[in-house]
């Protein structure tokens, strides 16, 4: 019975993935992407990866989905006008479409062959045994009780540190691509009163829930990344509600918030090296506390970076397109 659920879920995911790429309308594509993300999150739950499920739902389906949705604002109108005419969407004269058929057939056949080998490779995989036993043996020394948090912030803290750096890099890249636009002109758009009230109510709840997720990460599913997305959601909501928080604080403070997760992690690592240890080798007595501090600062930094990425993308077109004042 339960295996039927898994098979059904697998079929749904494959269908959604294919449909998401084949549908001619961009808006359908984006919404199917949301559905695909949620299907994937369900698959993580079925596989017992609750941490991954929360991360997937929050960052991959949630945050990235919001970015895609926001992109529709600029892309979708044009596509929807032309949707009834396939050739216009592809922007190619008919003979070009015909000349594309042969390479496509070859590509599809190649992919089918590739799929066959991939399936064989996955099916025939020897059982390597994984690292569950060694993680379990060393868990008491890690300072936390939840194995995934122990791996993320202690056993493989180096990867996690670099990853916080990658998010910061992503933001820098977005700055390079779109110009640094954190500042939404105040009064440019007046948010709806009801939206403002809801934001006012939801913000503290989101904050508390984020803090809960962060704290619970020590013993169960949850942790810095999941908390960061919730806190990032606060920033995004405030941005939408006409209160862009980074426009209200000085630039140096923004940079401090942005870099403190990465910076504290690194400075701590350097201090540990100066103490004769290796990078990120916490003294066992303080490991739990240090991990909590790193997680908190890291979550705030990631939340700030996510907010800034959204704010920047959201205002991508504002140089040319004047925002219409809504009353």
């Amino acid at each position, binding site marked *: 019975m339960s295996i039927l659920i898994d098979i059904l879920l697998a079929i749904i995911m494959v269908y959604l993935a294919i449909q998401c790429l084949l549908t001619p309308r961009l808006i359908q594509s984006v919404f199917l992407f949301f559905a695909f993300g949620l299907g994937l999150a369900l698959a993580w739950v079925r596989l017992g990866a609750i941490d991954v499920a929360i991360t997937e739902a929050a960052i991959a389906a949630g945050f990235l989905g919001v970015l895609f949705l926001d992109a529709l604002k600029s892309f979708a109108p044009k596509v929807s006008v032309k949707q009834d005419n396939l050739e216009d969407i592809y922007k190619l004269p008919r003979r070009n479409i015909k000349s594309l058929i042969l390479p496509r057939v070859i590509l599809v056949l190649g992919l089918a062959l590739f799929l066959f080998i991939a399936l064989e490779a996955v099916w025939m995989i020897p059982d390597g045994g994984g690292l569950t036993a060694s993680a379990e043996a060393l868990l008491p020394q890690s300072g936390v009780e939840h194995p995934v948090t122990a791996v993320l912030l202690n056993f493989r803290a180096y990867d996690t540190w670099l990853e916080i750096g990658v998010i910061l890099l992503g933001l820098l890249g977005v700055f390079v691509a*779109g110009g640094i636009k954190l500042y939404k002109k105040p009064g440019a758009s007046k948010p709806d009163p009801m939206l403002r009230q809801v934001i006012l109510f939801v913000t503290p709840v989101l904050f508390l829930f984020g803090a809960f997720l962060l704290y619970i990460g020590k013993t169960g599913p949850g942790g810095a990344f999941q908390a960061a997305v919730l806190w990032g959601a606060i920033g995004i909501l405030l941005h939408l509600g006409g209160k862009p928080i980074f426009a209200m604080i000085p630039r140096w403070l923004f940079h401090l918030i942005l870099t403190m997760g990465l910076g504290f992690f690194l400075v701590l690592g350097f201090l540990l090296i100066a103490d004769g240890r290796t990078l990120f080798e916490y003294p066992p007595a303080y490991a739990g506390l240090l991990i909590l501090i790193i997680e908190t600062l890291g979550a705030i930094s990631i939340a700030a970076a996510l907010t800034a990425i959204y704010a920047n993308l959201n205002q991508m077109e504002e140089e040319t397109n004047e925002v219409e004042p809504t009353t």
Partner: protein
Amino acid sequence: METYQIYSLTSAILFIIGIGGIFMARHFIKKIIATVIMGGGVFLSFVSFAQRDAITFADPVPHALVITGIVVAVASAALALALARRIYQLTGEETFTNDK
């Protein structure tokens, strides 16, 4: 057939769908979505092996790797989206129509 095998086979299928999408989809946004689907397939294979290797709990290492990987993939996708929107804003192009 074990539960993990359903998902590891699905992971290979999603991986191939993603690759196909990157090459065959024309619109920037769809290409970016295809990369995310491809990533989803890769992460699914990690987690399916983690479930296979469970003792008292599922193997935490792949879980941690996948969390890291998802965040990294989202950062790259966000950058790609920024580039695509900037291109659209400057030129009105939404596909790689010619060699630019």
